[in-house]
């Protein structure tokens, strides 16, 4: 691949232009066009039937839930849903494509003209969504399992996908990552997919071109494929942009072609170009009449959408007076935001709730690798613990210990504090007795304090706390030491 990694051109003179095509597996029980199990992990070719094996005479029948999830996604991306959309056949030969064509949508897709807000604050911007269409997945080809042979597993063949095509509105690899992050988050919020790039439930192809800064016309684009992480996308875009800049600097022309990202070598290289590979001979799928969505269904699906990330961030910032960065953390997932809001409402002090959720809760989940959905500390229990701290029943430091035990056992905070003897002692008689004992046991320090050496207050309070095994309320001890010693 000589020539691809020449000395870098002056890339600051160029601007990157990126559009992304994202394939997302929809989370249905069964495949798009047959009732085979769509879930991952079965032995090879077990989840197959006459339809997804493309046996002679078999015909597709569309899964209603796949349509429903695709509609949810299209609404969440602000698209206009077409009341009539048309499935089309995309014809090409490949051993993991059993029919020799993929059922997709072409000139009349499910939805058009949406948008996605990316980035925060000053960096916030809008990326246009050209279209969202439905299609079916292919099977898997495994090239390295048997010598001289490719092994085909059709369990995935026919699993429903949506393809989300963006406008070429991104201007950097960071924009692309921000777009993917926002897209992934929105798809998680609306619960249509696992959106896991490593597992292949989210796949990204990028259209990239370079143009001189200030130029209005778009340059010739290439399509970059084979990226399997967000950072891979970022690095691939940068590598391809740099390559194109080099081509342009030399006064040559960029060829419209498909480039493959090689993450291990940190480079892009052209896919073997084949004369016929892009003549897909699309035509309307005669086995499926047009998909008709009545306006009632379209509205119903729109109404059932949950609050989307951007709206939720705005509301949390306003309603609870939280800082932008905190809101970002708390709204990472619907479940986390729900958790925070439940705790904040039950407790009353949203800032305290936010600090605890961002601090102890996330740290605990991180260590134990749990999800918030299965976390043993319910939001109400966290709120109760915060109540106890606010009311001085447990100290802040004891509360952390109580929380850890709650996370382990699932017990209520009052019970844990009681059992572990972590309830603060606020009984005046008991506190007075401890203070008096300490003053009596340390006459020298007590004397110097009385004489005006105020810095010894801390020492004396510490001794009382020690005597109480940490259970004394430090504020009350402070007061009492001054009162009893000062006389």
């Amino acid at each position, binding site marked *: 691949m000589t020539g691809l990694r020449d000395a870098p051109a002056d890339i600051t003179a160029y601007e990157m232009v990126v559009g992304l095509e994202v394939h997302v597996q929809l989370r*249905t*029980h*069964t495949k798009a066009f*047959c*009732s*085979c*199990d769509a879930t991952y992990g079965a*032995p*090879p*070719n*077990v*989840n*197959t*039937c*006459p*339809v997804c*094996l493309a046996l002679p005479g078999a015909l597709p*029948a*569309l*899964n*209603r*839930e*796949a*349509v429903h999830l695709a509609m949810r996604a299209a609404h969440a991306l602000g698209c206009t849903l077409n009341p*009539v959309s*048309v499935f089309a056949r995309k014809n*090409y*030969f*490949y*051993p*993991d*494509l059993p029919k020799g064509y993929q059922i997709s949508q072409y000139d*009349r897709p499910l939805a058009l003209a949406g948008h996605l807000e990316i980035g925060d604050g000053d960096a916030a911007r809008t990326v246009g969504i050209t279209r969202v269409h439905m299609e079916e997945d292919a099977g898997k*080809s495994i*090239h390295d*399992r*048997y010598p*001289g*042979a*490719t*092994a*085909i*597993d059709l369990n995935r063949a026919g699993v429903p996908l949506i393809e989300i095509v963006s406008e070429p509105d991104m201007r950097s690899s960071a924009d692309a990552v921000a777009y993917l992050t926002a897209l992934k988050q929105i798809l998680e919020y609306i619960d249509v997919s696992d959106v896991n790039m490593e597992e292949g439930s989210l796949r990204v*192809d990028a259209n990239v071109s370079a143009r001189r800064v200030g130029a209005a016309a778009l340059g010739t684009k290439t399509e970059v*494929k*084979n990226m399997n992480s967000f950072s891979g996308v970022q690095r691939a875009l940068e590598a391809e942009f740099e390559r194109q800049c080099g081509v342009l600097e030399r006064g040559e022309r960029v060829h419209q072609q*498909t480039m*493959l990202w090689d993450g291990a070598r940190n480079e892009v290289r052209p*896919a*073997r170009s*084949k*004369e*016929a*590979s892009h*003549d897909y*001979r699309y035509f309307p799928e005669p086995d499926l*009449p*047009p*998909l*008709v969505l009545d306006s009632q269904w379209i509205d119903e699906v729109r109404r059932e959408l949950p609050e989307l990330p951007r709206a939720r961030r705005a509301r949390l910032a306003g309603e609870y007076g939280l800082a932008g960065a905190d809101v970002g953390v708390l709204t990472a997932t619907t479940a986390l935001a729900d958790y925070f809001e439940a705790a904040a409402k039950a407790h009353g002090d949203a800032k305290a709730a936010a600090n605890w959720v961002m601090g102890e809760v996330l740290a605990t989940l991180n260590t134990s690798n749990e999800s918030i959905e299965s976390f043993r500390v319910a939001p109400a229990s966290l709120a109760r613990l915060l109540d106890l701290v606010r009311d001085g029943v447990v100290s802040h430091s004891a509360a952390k210990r109580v929380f850890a035990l709650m996370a382990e056992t699932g017990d209520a905070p009052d019970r844990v504090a009681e059992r572990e003897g972590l309830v603060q002692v606020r009984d005046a008689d008991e506190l007075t007795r401890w203070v008096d004992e300490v003053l009596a046991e340390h006459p020298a320090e007590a004397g110097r304090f009385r004489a005006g050496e105020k810095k010894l207050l801390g020492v004396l309070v510490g001794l009382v706390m020690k005597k109480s095994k940490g259970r004394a309320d430090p504020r009350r001890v402070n007061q009492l030491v001054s009162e009893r010693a000062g006389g």
Partner: protein
Amino acid sequence: MAVTRDDVAHIAGLARLAISDDRMTELAEQLNAILGHMEVLQQVDTRHVETTAQEGNEALPLRPDAGPRFAMHRRLDEMAPEMRDGFFLVPRLATHEDTSDAS
């Protein structure tokens, strides 16, 4: 729109058909003869025609997202030319780059 031998070679490639050289000329002639009869369609004014709605105008029925899987009365290895460990086997692709055909 005459079909040339090259056109036949091109579409034979798309259709994954191997055509011998002598057949190629014959097929180009036949396709030209057949397509010649199609030219008459170009004379028809179809500007007013809407083609999406055909026949009975039935909308696409949707099926529930539930099993069971469609029953098969024979095993895959009774039909498949070559299987191993549950996989269909095919001759290995010439290069890894071939995979880019599948988008």
